[in-house]
């Protein structure tokens, strides 16, 4: 459960909203047609793929639902999601494969 005050949550929403807007408005509004240094462009290309895997790895290896101990059903579901995502380049297809694997494994291993 979330343990922050209402003011903190709204503060977060506003700060994230303003920060995200500034990122999106950067070139369209502020910087215009100037070109970015190639190194910066190169780093920007890897931001989502640099952050999301590190966030998801602990959630897969020590799920909160099992009190943090390794859970074969959830690990299998994670593998299936990743494999289908890589093979078919489809986010929704990967989610469906992950959910189907999770339910099948939870049922079989129960």
């Amino acid at each position: 459960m979330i343990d922050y005050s209402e003011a903190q949550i709204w503060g977060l929403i506003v700060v994230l909203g303003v920060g995200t807007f500034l990122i999106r408005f950067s070139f369209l509004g502020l910087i215009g047609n100037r070109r970015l240094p190639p190194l910066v462009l190169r780093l920007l290309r890897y931001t989502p793929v640099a952050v999301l895997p590190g966030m998801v790895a602990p959630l897969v290896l020590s799920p909160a639902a099992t009190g943090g101990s390794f859970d074969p059903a959830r690990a299998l579901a994670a593998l299936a999601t990743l494999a289908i995502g890589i093979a078919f380049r489809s986010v929704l297809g990967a989610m469906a494969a992950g959910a189907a694997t999770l339910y099948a494994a939870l049922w079989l291993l129960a």
Partner: protein
Amino acid sequence: MAGSTGKTQLLRGALAGLPFVPVVSPFAVLFGALAAEAGLDLAATVGFSTVVIAGAAQFAALQLLVEGAAMGAIVATALAVNLRMAMYSAALVPHVGTVPLWQRALIAHLNFDQTFAASVVHYEAHPAMTPREKAAYFLGVAGVIAPCWVGFTILGALAGSRIPESWALDFALPITFLAMIGPMLKTPAHAAAAAVSVIVALALAGLPSGLGLLIAGGAAMATGAAVESLSEGRAA
């Protein structure tokens, strides 16, 4: 005359946005449901989807809120996830860089993966479009996708607290992230960045929540850029 072509483009954009409705709405429902499960009230949940309006960053912020991370770490992580939108912003300048400021500001706020992709594909196929027509087209696409994102967030939030525990919704978030990661692994550089992100994040799991992830993200970005440079050097 200018008004009527603007309207035509707005309508064309809206039609182009329609196929994204079934793609976007499950994520929005999931965000609403997970936020409700985590104890976020409806107003704050809708606040995220209207003020921040960025899927992956919203999920990331929600996960770190549940973990009890420091506010600074949540802000830094969610904004890092959104940094790619600076590239989208730069890519739109040649198309709509000359339209009035309020239109550019509106386009900026509504510039996320789906609106950007749908619009740029169309611009490239129709190079004769004027900047004003392009802006109208973008706002047409966004005018369909953005309300759908917010509406389905509300639907998810209302359903969220009624979903039984046997649905194992706890794992919906990891599955969503993993489903987004798979298609991102397009090159060896992307795969290397993902691997470094995982290894460093796990190695630093003992640090206060969110801090290890930031270090992992920085190391992974540097890895991706370095591997890209190396493979370019080899190809040249």
